C-alpha cells in the first residue's frame, strides 16, 4: 500500500519496519526535521549520546551483542564527521550498522554551505556502501536497501545522507516494494566441489587445527563449530574476534594465536598439517610474516567474502559461502575420527607453554584484575574492552562461558571503544551483566558518555585498568625504541572515583590484591552503574609476544 508521507516519516516508518527499536544519536540543524517527527513514533527509542563517536560505537556494541543492525543519527558537517571513527571500527570488524546523517539542503550542496561536509565522499572507504538521497520518493527503498546490505553477506556499516529539505518533502513510500540490487549477491551454500575438496582434506589430515574467526560469531554458528570440532576431534583456536565462539572450558579449546596470543595456539597452528579457517581474514596480527606462516600445512579458507580468499595467504581449498550453510554441508561429509596423537601433542604444548602464568607479585597487576573478574562473574558477563595491554589481558584471562560475549575493536584497534560499546551492549541486553574493561587512556577518550549511562539508568560496570600510562605504547617503546619513552606517561589523570561521583555514579578504588574480590562483588551487587578504579602496576612487557611481522620462531614467551 502506497503511503504519502514526509521524508522524515518515511525514514521512521522504514526503520520500524526493519525492526529498529533503539537509535543512538545527537541532533543538529540538518537533521532536526527527523527529530521533529520522533514523538509520533514511540516505538523508536532515541538515546542521546554526548559525542557522535559514542553514538556510533554504541550502535556497534548493540549490533555485535544482539546480532541486529545498530542505528546512529548525526547532523551534517561535524556531526557526520564525528561518526567516521565508529564507522571505520565497524567496517574493519564487519559489524552491521546503519548511520543516518542530515545534509545541507539540496540547493546548498557543493557551495561550502554552513556545516556542509561531503560525508558520502569521506566515508566511502569506511562503509560497505553509502547513499546521498535526493528525493523523498527514494527514501523508503534506500532505507530498506541499506539494512539489507548492512546485515547480509559480509555485514558492515551503511550510511544514508539526507538533505534537510528531503526530510521535509512529501514523498511516496511503498513498504512492500521489493529490493532490486543487481550488483549485490549474497553467498549462501558453497559449491559442492569446494565442499568435497575441503572434506577430503579434513578426512586425510593428521594434525588439523580449526581457526575460528569473527565469521563464526557473525553467522551465529557456535553449535555447528562445536559439532564439527567434536566429530573429528580437532583443536579449536579462536582469533581475537573469534573469542567466545567456542567454550573455553572445552578440552579442544586452544586459545587465541598471534602477537599476544597464547604461545600454544601459535605453536599448534605452526605445527599443523591442515588449517581450517572459518571466517577469519588471516589478519597480519595472526600471520606475522606471511612467508613463514605455518609452512607445513594445507589450508582451507571458508569465507563469505570471495575477496578475502588468497588475499594474504595462499590456500589450497577455498570455500565461498555463508559459514552456517557451509557447516551444514560439511558436517555430513566429515568422518568421525580421533586424532589421539595430535591431541596429546596439543595438550603437551598447553602444558609446556602455559602462556597465562600470572606474574608472581604482591602488587596489583592487570592480570590479577581480569582473573578475579572472570572468577567472580563465573565467565558469565558480556565484556567490552578498549585497545592496549588491558585488552590483551582481558582476551587472555577472562574465561568466556557464553557465546558472543566478547566485544572488542580488533581490526581498527580503536581506543575509546570501551565506554560507548558497553552502552550499546547493555541497552541491547538489559538483563545481562556488562563489564567494560577500560584502559585509563581509552576511557578518557570517551568518558563523557558516563552521562549517557546515568541518563539511561544503565547498570554498566566500568573497570578502569589504571596504570597511569598508555601501557601498550610504553611496551613498544621498551621493545622497539630501546626504552626511549616518549608521550606514554600520564601525570594528569583525574581521580576516577571522584569523577564517577560527579556523575552520580558509584566509584570504588582498588589498590591491592586483597580488595579485588570484594570490590567486584560490591560492584556486581550495586543496582546502578559503577566505576572501579583498579590502580595497577605499570609494566613494560606483555607476554607472550611475537614481534610485528615476525613468525613463531621469534616468539618471546616470558623471559622472567
Amino acid at each position, binding site marked *: 500500500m502506497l503511503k504519502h508521507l514526509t521524508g522524515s516519516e518515511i525514514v521512521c516508518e522504514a526503520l520500524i519496519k526493519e525492526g529498529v527499536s533503539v537509535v543512538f544519536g545527537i541532533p543538529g540543524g540538518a537533521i532536526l526535521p527527523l527529530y521533529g517527527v520522533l514523538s509520533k513514533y514511540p516505538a523508536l527509542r532515541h538515546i542521546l549520546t554526548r559525542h557522535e563517536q559514542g553514538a556510533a560505537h554504541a550502535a556497534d556494541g548493540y549490533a555485535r551483542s544482539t546480532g541486529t543492525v545498530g542505528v546512529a543519527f548525526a547532523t551534517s558537517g561535524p556531526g557526520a564527521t564525528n561518526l567516521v571513527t565508529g564507522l571505520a571500527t565497524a567496517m574493519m570488524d564487519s559489524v552491521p550498522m546503519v548511520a543516518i546523517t542530515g545534509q545541507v539542503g539540496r540547493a546548498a550542496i557543493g557551495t561550502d554551505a554552513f556545516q556542509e561536509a561531503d560525508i558520502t565522499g569521506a566515508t566511502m572507504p569506511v562503509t560497505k556502501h553509502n547513499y546521498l538521497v535526493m528525493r523523498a520518493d527514494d527514501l523508503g527503498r534506500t532505507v530498506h536497501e541499506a539494512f539489507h546490505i548492512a546485515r547480509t553477506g559480509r555485514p558492515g556499516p551503511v550510511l544514508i545522507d539526507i538533505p534537510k529539505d528531503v526530510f521535509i518533502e512529501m514523498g511516496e513510500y511503498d513498504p512492500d516494494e521489493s529490493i532490486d540490487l543487481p550488483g549485490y549477491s*549474497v553467498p549462501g551454500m558453497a559449491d559442492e566441489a569446494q565442499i568435497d575438496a575441503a572434506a577430503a582434506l579434513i578426512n586425510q589430515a593428521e594434525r588439523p587445527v580449526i581457526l575460528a574467526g569473527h565469521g563464526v560469531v557473525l553467522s551465529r554458528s557456535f553449535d555447528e563449530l562445536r559439532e564439527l570440532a567434536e566429530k573429528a576431534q580437532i583443536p579449536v583456536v579462536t582469533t581475537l574476534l573469534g573469542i567466545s565462539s567456542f567454550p573455553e572450558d572445552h578440552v579442544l579449546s586452544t586459545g587465541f594465536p598471534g602477537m599476544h596470543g597464547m604461545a600454544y595456539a601459535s605453536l599448534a597452528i605452526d605445527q599443523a598439517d591442515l588449517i581450517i579457517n572459518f571466517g577469519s581474514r588471516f589478519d597480519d596480527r595472526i600471520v606475522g610474516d606471511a612467508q613463514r606462516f605455518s609452512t607445513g600445512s594445507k589450508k582451507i579458507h571458508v569465507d563469505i567474502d570471495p*575477496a578475502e580468499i588468497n588475499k594474504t595467504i595462499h590456500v589450497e581449498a577455498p570455500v565461498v559461502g555463508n559459514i552456517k550453510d557451509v557447516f551444514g554441508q560439511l558436517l555430513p561429509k566429515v568422518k568421525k575420527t580421533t586424532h589421539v596423537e595430535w591431541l596429546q601433542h596439543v595438550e603437551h604444548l598447553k602444558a609446556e607453554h602455559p602462556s597465562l602464568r600470572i606474574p608472581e607479585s604482591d602488587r596489583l597487576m592487570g592480570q590479577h584484575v581480569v582473573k578475579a573478574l572472570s572468577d567472580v562473574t563465573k565467565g558469565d558477563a558480556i565484556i567490552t574492552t578498549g585497545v592496549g595491554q588491558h585488552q590483551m589481558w582481558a582476551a587472555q584471562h577472562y574465561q568466556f562461558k557464553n557465546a558472543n560475549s566478547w566485544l572488542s575493536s580488533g581490526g581498527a584497534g580503536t581506543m575509546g571503544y570501551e565506554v560507548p560499546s558497553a552502552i550499546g551492549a547493555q541497552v541491547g541486553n538489559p538483563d545481562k551483566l556488562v563489564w567494560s574493561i577500560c584502559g585509563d587512556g581509552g576511557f578518557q577518550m570517551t568518558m563523557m558518555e558516563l552521562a549517557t549511562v546515568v541518563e539511561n539508568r544503565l547498570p554498566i560496570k566500568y573497570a578502569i585498568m589504571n596504570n597511569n600510562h598508555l601501557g601498550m605504547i610504553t611496551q613498544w617503546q621498551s621493545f622497539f625504541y630501546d626504552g626511549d619513552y616518549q608521550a606514554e606517561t600520564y601525570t594528569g589523570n583525574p581521580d576516577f572515583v571522584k569523577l564517577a561521583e560527579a556523575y552520580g555514579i558509584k566509584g570504588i578504588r582498588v589498590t591491592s590484591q586483597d580488595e579485588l574480590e570484594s570490590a567486584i562483588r560490591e560492584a556486581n551487587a550495586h543496582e546502578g552503574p559503577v566505576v572501579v578504579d583498579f590502580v595497577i602496576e605499570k609494566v613494560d612487557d606483555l607476554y607472550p609476544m611475537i614481534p610485528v611481522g615476525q613468525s613463531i620462531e621469534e616468539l618471546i614467551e616470558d623471559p622472567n
Partner: protein
Amino acid sequence: MAETANGTFQRTIAALVQDRPGVLARIAGLFRRRGFNIASLAVGRSERSGLSRMTFVVEGPEEVVRQVAAQLDRLIDVVEVHDITEQNIVWRELALIKVRANAGKRGEILELANIFRVNVIDIGVESLTMEISGGRQKIDSLIELLRKFGLEEVIRTGRVATLRGTLVEGEDDGLFQSDASKSTYTLPTATGESGSV
C-alpha cells in the same frame, strides 16, 4: 599475465556498472586504497539502459592485481565484473595522431598511413591528423615511425575489450595472448557457485 617492462603485471578487467553519480569515484577510491594502478580506463554507456561498461587495464605486483576483480565485485554499484586477462579476447585502442606535415613530407606520411590502413581525418597546411585503431603494438609502431616528422599531439584512449564470440581466431591484430592454464580466478555467483569466467 603480461609482465610489463618494469616488472609489474597487467590485467584486463571488464565491468558492467550502474550509471550513477559517484560510481567512478567509488572505483577510483578502491583502486587507490588497494594500490591498484590504472594503466588505462575506458567508460561508456552499454547496450543495457542504466548500465555502463568499463574496461580497465591495471598494473601492479602480481599478487595485488590478481585481486582487482574480486575487490571490484564487492562494490554494490558494480553489477558484473570479469577478469578477462587470460580469456580469449579481442581488444582495441584508438589514437588520434597529429603530425607535422608540410607539402614536401605529406606524400611520405600518407603512404605510411596507407600501409597501416589508418584514416586521415584532417589535413592542414602544416599538419595532418590521422586516426588509428588496433592493438597497442600497432599504435606504438606507427607513432615511432611518425616521430621523425615531428609529433604535435598524440591522444590515446584506453583499451576496450570483449570476449571472442567464435572459436575461430580472427586477425591477430589486437588479440591479447591468452594462456588459459594460468587462469586461477573464478567468479563466485549469487548462489555461491563458482564458474570460470
